[in-house]
């Protein structure tokens, strides 16, 4: 089930992921650009401004009306951080023609609409309209501020900022409120031009059938753009282990404390290069069979969740939990004790086998979800021939206990971030 890839221009790759089981078609344009303080906010706004209006649908209620008529076609817009790069995604998901009441040509209309949105936005004299720019700025600012309201997300974001201060990965994926405030219709238009000119591009199609003429239309659209300085997606710097573990504490008026531990690892890279690290993280704090779930949550009742997050390409991991602040020291000790057990290889065969089975089982379910397949291929930008879920599943079977233990040995605590409720005034 390897996808078919087609070259659609300099640094533009089309990928048809054929899958007969879906009654919808998903098409996504993925633009990869370097993560930089000076461009992050403008870039991050692009997927959103592009999916709210276009030259043909200048008013977003007209656009939304069109989408509703297309049997509730969904537009996809997101901005993600992948290593030291920004991924801007713009896409559409539409039901297949044969499921419409009168066999309408929905897919063709959806392709045309998507190309309109990306290549023919609503702009005049080299600027996006003030109204559209300001609307999306306001929504972006509210989104950034909204992260503050979700303390689990906020705490994790703060840890990453602290750990990667001064490097690309420390930059917030949507920029800061201050950075968004400086965006103008002109700067946004320039960012759009730059995205089309120098972004590394992948166009994914997940469907039972390749929409007729789509890749040809995309290829033609890019041929008129004069692509230059195309992003190569090769640079990714990793953190060295900390000489001294740093602790950052913040106080807020909240009920539950949030604790996030950041660790460096000696291993980093693509899926193929980090198999044992990823398995180690699963045993350590992945599923309910993991060391952290069974010891920190179930045995010690310290928290409701205690889970590992791994960023393979950067070779670092986090452990986060929500706790009663008086248990903080106890929780840190319990977590680091479990890491020690991993390093010593004292995890059980059952835990090891469970992690392998669970990983393989969930890889199989990728084929049942269009958005997961799209995500799978859009995240694997650092290798020319990314493995399919099936291939990765075969590779996982070959990892040994010793490999896992070796991966664990390279892990060191780097930074502790603690968000605590304010002290009650005495």
């Amino acid at each position, binding site marked *: 089930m390897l996808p078919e890839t087609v070259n659609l221009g300099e640094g533009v790759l089309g990928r048809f992921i054929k899958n007969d089981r879906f009654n919808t078609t998903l098409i996504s344009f993925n633009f990869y650009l370097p993560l930089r303080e000076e461009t992050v906010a403008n870039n991050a706004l692009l997927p959103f401004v592009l999916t709210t209006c276009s030259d043909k649908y200048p008013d977003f209620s007209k656009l939304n009306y069109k989408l509703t008529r297309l049997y509730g076609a969904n537009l996809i817009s997101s901005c993600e951080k992948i290593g030291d790069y920004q991924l801007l995604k713009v896409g559409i998901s539409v039901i297949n023609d044969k499921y419409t009441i009168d066999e309408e040509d929905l897919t063709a209309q959806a392709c045309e609409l998507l190309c309109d949105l990306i290549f023919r936005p609503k702009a005049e004299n080299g600027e996006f309209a003030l109204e559209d720019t300001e609307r999306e700025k306001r929504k972006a600012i509210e989104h950034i501020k909204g992260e503050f309201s979700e303390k689990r997300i906020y705490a994790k974001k703060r840890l990453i900022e602290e750990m990667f201060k001064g490097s690309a990965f420390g930059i917030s994926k949507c920029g800061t409120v201050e950075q968004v405030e400086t965006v103008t219709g002109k700067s946004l238009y320039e960012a759009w031009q730059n995205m089309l000119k120098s972004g590394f591009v992948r166009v994914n199609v997940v469907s039972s059938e390749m929409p007729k003429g789509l890749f040809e239309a995309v290829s033609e659209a890019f041929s008129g753009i004069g692509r230059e300085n195309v992003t190569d997606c090769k640079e990714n710097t990793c953190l060295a282990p900390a000489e001294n573990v740093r602790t950052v504490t913040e106080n807020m008026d909240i009920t539950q404390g949030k604790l996030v531990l950041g660790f460096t690892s000696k291993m980093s890279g693509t899926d193929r290069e980090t198999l044992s690290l990823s398995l180690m993280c699963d045993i350590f704090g992945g599923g*309910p*069979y993991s060391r952290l779930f069974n010891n920190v949550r179930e045995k010690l009742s310290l928290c409701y969740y205690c889970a590992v997050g791994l960023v393979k390409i950067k070779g670092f991991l986090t452990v986060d939990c929500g706790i009663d602040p008086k248990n903080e020291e106890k929780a840190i000790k319990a977590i680091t004790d479990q890491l020690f057990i991993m390093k010593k290889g004292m995890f059980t065969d059952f835990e090891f086998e*469970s992690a392998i089975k669970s990983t393989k089982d969930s890889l199989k379910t990728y084929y049942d979800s269009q958005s997961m397949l799209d995500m799978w291929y859009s995240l694997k930008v650092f290798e020319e021939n990314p493995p399919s879920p099936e291939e990765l599943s075969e590779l996982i079977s070959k990892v040994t206990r010793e490999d896992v233990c070796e991966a664990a040995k390279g892990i060191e605590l780097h930074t502790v971030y603690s968000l605590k409720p304010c002290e009650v005034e005495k």
Partner: protein
Amino acid sequence: MIKKQYFEGPFGEGYVKAVHPTGLEIYIMEKPNFDSAHAVFGTKYGSIDTVFSKDGGEEISVPEGIAHFLEHKLFESEEGDAFTRFAATGASANAYTSFDRTCYLFTCGDNFYENLKILLDFVQHPYFTQETVEKEQGIIGQEIGMYDDNAGWRVMFNMLKNMYSEHPVRIDIAGTVESIAQIDASLLYRCYETFYNPSNMFICIAGNVDADKILKQIEEEVIYYPPVEISRKEFIENESVANTYVEQELSVAIPAFCYGYKQKITTPERSLKTKVCMSLLLELICGEASPLYARLVREGLINDEFGSEYFCGRGYATMLFEGESTDPKRVAEEIDAEINRIRENGIDKKLFSAVKCGMYGDAVRRMGSVVGSAMSLVESAVSGQELYEEIKLLKSVTAESVVKRLVSFSRENSVLSVIVPKEEK
């Protein structure tokens, strides 16, 4: 032994509905093109079932949050917990409790029948001791603490608390630290024996499975208990609300709001036609293609967090609108005004036909995934309404029958709940 019926759907698929002699209902949608399967074993028992009697016995009142507590505890057995057993097969298992149901579920790529065996086994074998109950009080206490800081959660429950004076939809699903402290093993068994009787339960499965094989397995593994008669207390609510405005301070950056219109109801359950009409109505009032949505976005009053829902269950029904806004009162006023406008001017026919088209597409989409299909079957099992009826109704429902529902909206019986940013000291 098992009674079977087949329902054919409009998108080339269908499902089997079977009833086990115990009264347990089974819904299976075979999806041979898929690789995975999703199974749910559920009971019609949720946070609102706080006062009940079994087989005509004495009515009892149980602590808030006990259904959710029971859900946590059921994963344990004398031999270890169910998660460990699922770990051996590789399945991903979970459970949830809502207002009117508790569901245990798994998704898997391989070993489906082995996983089904585990699911059937652990849900049918409770094991509670005082010691394990106490341990869980610590974990759930942290879960409650997490919800206490969650603006989206708080804003909704503050609204419900002020809208309903009697009905237990007003209480937090997980209860409070104080209420769960009153839970003990014997109380858990009492709830279990009432609500986990097969006659009150359902199994819904979708995916790459064989329906006949599943039915045979269920026949072999479901324990025969005589059906029980459950009598749930009916809470009589008047139309009015305690307060039309409620506010709480939390550590958030932008105010969160939840605006609901309490609806007058005369029967405990809503018909499918009512639900379909209300969903269409919501789309017409504030869906993304509606003039109100455009206006609210243009004026900077809402963002992508905005949404609406016809929130209903046994004994309650509310039309609610939620999101983030720098001016929640303005948003509520605009919604009121739009409802009045539609009442006076009628429905835009062009928009009505587009919105129907969109909802039809959503129904197709749900059937396109294993989890979506299984979840639709769960809805069908809990509501007792046949799955494909919704699509048939969507085609036939008229603008007139939708607009007439607007009568049930009254500003006096609405609650605006707002979470405002707390000033950090």
